[in-house]
């Protein structure tokens, strides 16, 4: 058909092809950066990074009951391990059926696990896998208590990526929510959870 409208897609792709008329040569990407960490004590690094972000770190599963005793209303993913809740006497809200944003906003804290943790940057990664639940769960409550097993800790960011499924919704968390928007100084506590507490448990034990 004469004068048929070209779709935006075809036109943009055609423009870009024209723009590359000079045929730039193939690029070899030099990957000389570190992909594995050789630091001896990853856990010490992790704790240092987390505390630098003003996250609070607790050691051992035994720390949980005391922590949870301060929490009146607690959100948990449906598959939360039963032993994490041992002795919990407060109001427990399992995310089934899914809690509405307004309902989540009324709760005091959420307790989850995580998928991978990067020691070098103090980053906790959630992938909606076991003991993590959907994204809204760890976002709306003002306090996030996250259980990290030492076998989930890797040194560097490249090591973490190899453990993740890109198709899962991923949330990378480095400390409580914060902003640097006022005079470029970091202050903690904006829209995301204002308190982040990490319970480190030794998976070897």
């Amino acid at each position, binding site marked *: 058909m004469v004068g048929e409208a*070209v779709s*935006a897609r*075809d*036109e*943009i*792709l*055609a*423009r*870009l*092809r*024209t*723009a*590359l*008329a000079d045929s*730039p*040569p*193939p*690029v070899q*990407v*030099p*990957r*000389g*950066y570190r*992909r594995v960490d050789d630091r001896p004590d990853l856990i010490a690094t992790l704790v240092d990074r987390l505390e*630098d972000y003003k996250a609070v770190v607790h050691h051992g599963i035994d720390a949980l009951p005391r922590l949870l005793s301060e929490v009146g209303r607690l959100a948990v993913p449906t598959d939360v391990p039963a032993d994490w809740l041992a002795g919990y006497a407060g109001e427990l809200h399992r995310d089934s059926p899914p809690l509405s*944003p*307004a309902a989540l906003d009324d709760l005091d804290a959420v307790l989850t696990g995580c998928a991978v943790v*990067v020691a070098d*940057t103090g*980053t906790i990664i959630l992938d909606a896998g076991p003991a993590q639940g959907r*994204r*809204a769960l760890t*976002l*709306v409550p003002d306090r996030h208590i996250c259980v990290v097993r030492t076998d989930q800790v890797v040194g560097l*960011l*490249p090591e973490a*990526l190899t453990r993740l499924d*890109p*198709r899962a919704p*991923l*949330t*990378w968390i*480095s*400390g409580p*929510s*914060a*902003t*640097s*928007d*006022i*005079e*470029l*100084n*970091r*202050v*903690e506590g*904006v*829209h*995301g*959870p204002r308190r982040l507490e990490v319970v480190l448990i030794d998976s070897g034990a």
Partner: protein
Amino acid sequence: MSRPVAPATGSGRIRTPLPFPTAAKPAVADTQLRANLHRATRTIRAKRARVVDEVPDWEALRDAGAAIKADVQRRLPELLEQFEASATAAGATVHWARDAAEACRIVVALTQAAGADEVVKVKSMATQEIELNEALEAAGIAAYETDLAELIVQLGDDTPSHILVPAIHYNRAQIREIFQRRMADAPADLSDEPAALAEAARAHLRRRFLSARVAVSGANFAVADTGTLVVVESEGNGRMCLTLPETLISVVGVEKLLPTFTDLEVFLQLLPRSSTGERMNPYTSMWTGVTPGDGPQDVHVVLVDNGRSAVLADPVGRPALSCIRCSACLNVCPVYERAGGHAYGSVYPGPIGAILSPQLTGVADNASLPYASTLCGACYDVCPVKINIPEILVHLRQQAPHPPAERAAMRVLSWVMRSPRRWAAALRLARVGAGPLGAYRERRTGARTLRRLPWPASAWTRSRDLPLPAPQTFREWWGKQ
């Protein structure tokens, strides 16, 4: 077989309404603004330097980042098709927009189709560039900026002046004043402590987040092999927008692609350290199409050209498309520090703006920007993807339309200097001609300098003395030996 289609320049908020020197004048004279920028840029420079210095393989990461981006540019059409296929397979709908107006039309139509008359927004340069808020407003849709700095700028009826911290030009007292004036639910006794101001913003936006039906975002990265989008943020407003509403529309420049998910291992190390000077920003979200039962179920991606094909068409200027909008180059730029972001007249200020805006629009439409630099090179040193900004600035200056008087003077000078004989004669003439004046000034003031000259030399002498030719040129001294 497709016919060749010429790359096209873009539209939107990327043109300087005033030449840079004119626009910079009031900023330079504003001592409060200068003090705010001085303080903020010094703070961030020191933070960046500290977290970059602790990374032993920083240069290797920069080399990898630059190479990955060069590879993306070389394969852009094929990677876009790959992204479209993977995102579509994951349940997203991919749209294409030739320019700002087309991108706005798409977002307006999608919002209307969702039956919403308001959207919550995550800070995004692309939506600033296409002037989406104005387009939404014209269609009767309210757009709420949720990033703290964007909120400050929106409430202050102002425009952003920095890529990362759009309200960098305000200090805490000024921010409190804006909140008290424009935020109905701000506490009466609001202090100017950053924590109190952040708390006020949290309370102000909370209800809006919990009830929003449509969110609009940009993306820091779009991964071709998986169809994943990535948003890097700090406050959690991004997570709110990307998670709670039913409909999510992401406006993404075509240059934002990365070939593979693995490539994120480079950029998620380069970006946070370069931008906020942190080892890692508080939150990074990645999503691939739709996840049943988790987050938005109606997911759209709008891929925008708006001048990027024109940038791609220039092999020297092309690396400007590598920019990851970290703003490190702004923070170290001595010109940005004095002139502020608004002087650049575009959503892209600072050194990257001085090369990107003229390339997006065509140099003739932003002719003063390539000259808004001393070529000191501080930007190139910090750029995490090694964009040689000074080289591109000089390249763009060749294409800029030159003022006729300047052109004439440059030609005469070139004619003189290309000939050793004419140059030697000119030196002699200048020395002899200035001789009596130099001698007079030396007797009067003890120095062979001038203090006041008529235009155009007045641009020099209003703040500095001008040296006169010496009583004997070097070559005359040499000849006498």
